[in-house]
């Protein structure tokens, strides 16, 4: 809940749902409101406000609480889910890597809809994929994929008042014959009419988290160690629930058996013990030996891993913001926990004036904090008080999150601005494209087509290329900042 977060949410909604929904979202961000209150604040016609509230609820971006009379309600924005929309491409990509293309399209269609019944979703996907494929087999394939997505808990049933816990991941009955007849235009109501499904972000986050850890290990050591880590994580789920800070014991022999069976990493198998040793003895507490029996068993300390990664990010941040010398001071404060200013000056081996300047800079931007310990009235001896610098990670993480929201907001504002400035030229390109498309359909000759394409002059083409490049850069930055936000949120989740 902050100023920039609110502005950011407004922009995210604006891009995806248009100005009306965005303004309604903004009104709800301030505090939960009733329908008429929203209407009054935004000043839109009642019909539009109703529609946008329905859209927000359908996409699971707002929740409502019925009042006592059972018809009116108070609406509340679900902030996390709106920020999640920035992560959708990563969700889709994840499914693409883990499962087949059909599953990817299913996920994509569900995201387009917000929530949907299984039959509706499968029909939608089938109409998209039906080119040169037999509809019967395609439907069967999609049904299986849907079932596996539900069993793997990527999809979750939309909760209503009387949904039981065990129903959340129960595969619904899907009648294939009915589906194909609906696709051929008959007007039946499918068997699972009022059972709605939506995305389960927790499950996706779990996978993204594992990916992050494996990537971190791979970057630090090598491919083989990364693979070892992946198998460790995979084995962790047999005995441990996914979100506990410290896993239960994982016997190392089990991991070795899997490596043996896999046969993909011969080097890992040959030097298995050494690799395990490297992973264990690394200072970052990635895995920890917890028992000697049966060749040893290990624990994975997720919480420690994420604390470590977060520290790493903070050091990087200081490094990029204030340069090496500052990151040296930052690390010193980190490893001493509490340190006096004079001691910093002695230990970092830099001119004291510079040390002072950098420490004040860090202090000003809240990267280090100051704690003053005062002795209460002493009658004898010199009255000495201590002034200590320290770092509070959780607070720093929240500051950084805020900074990330602000950056995202800036990037998006910039993008909108560029689009607005260059609307004329983008517009022209669009027109030329539509014309040439139309001519191609009519079967025009190559010469005619090139004539049309030449309507865009070289300088214009150059400008377009420039805009495209800038847009790409801004979009990539958006994706990357979301990565950072994800890591920081993971840290806060474990905290």
């Amino acid at each position, binding site marked *: 809940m902050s100023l920039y977060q609110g502005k950011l949410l407004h922009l995210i909604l604006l*891009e995806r*749902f248009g100005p*009306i*929904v965005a303004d309604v979202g903004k009104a709800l961000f301030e505090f939960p409101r009733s329908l008429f209150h929203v209407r009054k604040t935004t000043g839109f016609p009642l019909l539009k406000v109703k529609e946008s509230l329905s*859209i927000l*609820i359908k996409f699971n971006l707002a929740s409502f609480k019925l009042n006592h009379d059972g018809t009116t309600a108070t609406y509340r924005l679900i902030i996390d889910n709106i920020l999640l929309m920035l992560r959708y*491409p990563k969700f889709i990509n994840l499914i693409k890597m883990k499962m087949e293309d059909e599953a990817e399209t299913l996920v994509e269609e569900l995201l387009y809809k917000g929530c949907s019944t299984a039959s509706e979703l499968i029909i939608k996907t089938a109409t998209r994929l039906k080119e040169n494929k037999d509809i019967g087999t395609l439907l069967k394939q999609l049904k299986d994929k849907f079932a596996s997505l539900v069993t793997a808990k990527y999809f979750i049933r939309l909760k209503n008042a009387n949904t039981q816990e065990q129903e959340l991941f129960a595969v619904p009955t899907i009648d294939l014959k009915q589906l194909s007849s609906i696709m051929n235009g008959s007007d039946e109501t499918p068997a699972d009419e009022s059972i709605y499904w939506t995305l389960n972000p927790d499950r996706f986050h779990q996978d993204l988290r594992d990916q992050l850890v494996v990537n971190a290990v791979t970057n630090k050591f090598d491919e083989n160690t990364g693979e070892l880590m992946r198998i460790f994580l995979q084995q962790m789920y047999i005995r441990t629930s996914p979100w506990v800070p410290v896993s239960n014991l994982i016997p190392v022999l089990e991991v070795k058996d899997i490596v043996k069976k896999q046969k993909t990493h011969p080097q890992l198998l040959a030097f298995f013990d050494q690799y395990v040793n490297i992973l264990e003895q690394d200072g970052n507490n990635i895995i920890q030996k917890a028992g000697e029996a049966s060749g040893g068993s290990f624990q994975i300390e997720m919480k420690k891993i994420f604390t470590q990664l977060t520290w790493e990010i903070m050091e990087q941040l200081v490094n*990029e913001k204030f340069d090496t010398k500052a990151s040296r001071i930052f690390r010193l404060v980190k490893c001493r926990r509490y340190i006096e200013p004079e001691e910093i000056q002695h230990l970092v081996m830099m001119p004291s004036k510079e040390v002072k300047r950098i420490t004040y800079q860090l202090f000003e931007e809240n990267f280090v904090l100051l704690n003053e310990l005062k002795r209460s009235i002493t009658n004898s001896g010199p009255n000495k008080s201590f002034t200590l610098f320290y770092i509070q990670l959780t607070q720093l993480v929240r500051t950084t999150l805020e900074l990330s929201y602000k950056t995202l907001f800036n990037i998006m504002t910039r993008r909108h601005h560029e689009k607005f400035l260059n609307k004329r030229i983008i517009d022209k390109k669009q027109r030329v494209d539509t014309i040439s498309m139309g001519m191609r359909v009519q079967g025009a000759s190559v010469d005619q087509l090139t004539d049309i394409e030449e309507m865009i002059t070289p300088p214009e083409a150059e400008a377009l290329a420039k805009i495209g490049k800038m847009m790409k850069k801004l979009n990539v930055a958006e994706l990357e900042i979301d990565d950072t936000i994800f890591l920081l949120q993971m840290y806060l989740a474990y905290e």
Partner: protein
Amino acid sequence: MSGRSRGRGGRGGAGGTSLNREQLNSIGVVPGENLPGPITEPPPLYPTLNRKPLPLRESVEIDYLLILRRDFIDHMQTSGAYLKMPEDRKGKPQHEIDRLLAQLPNVKEKFDWQLFPAELRPKVVAKRMKLKDVKSSIDIESRLKQLEKLEEKSGEAMDVTVKEEAEQEENEEQLEVNYEDEDIDDGTDYANNYFDNGEAYEDEDDNLDDGPIY
């Protein structure tokens, strides 16, 4: 300024630079050193960057993510979930893109109204659902009657306690009525003493010990 920070723990709030002289001394700011004076102008809107940010990563994966992202946004913008402002009849859309978008059929998003609060339903749907409700409510009433009969048999003991509570409440209500009567019985306003000698002025304990005034 010094008064605030002397109390506890030096730096109390978010206020960036409210350190007193003592604290400044202790972190090494010597009085003789010429400190920069107060800044009277706002910071520049676009401060110059001291360092150039690192170039962004480039990979096939990121390209694919970008495509996914664009697809998603394009789809949302043409779908029924993208609400447009009510149209201006006078001004024609100036740009080609706007004109193309305006040609698109206005799809309405489909909703299952069972899942939404009743007040959001469009009127047509609301009427239809009300009709259904009336039909089903008959069933509910008969069911309720059945339940009542069951309760009468098993829950007579419960009834007694409920009655007692109800009686208590009635008594309390009567008491309140009595209090109100007192004020009225006093007759005119002149009987009350409204003189304030000022002793109770800014007295924090005022009214707290006496309990509520009736």
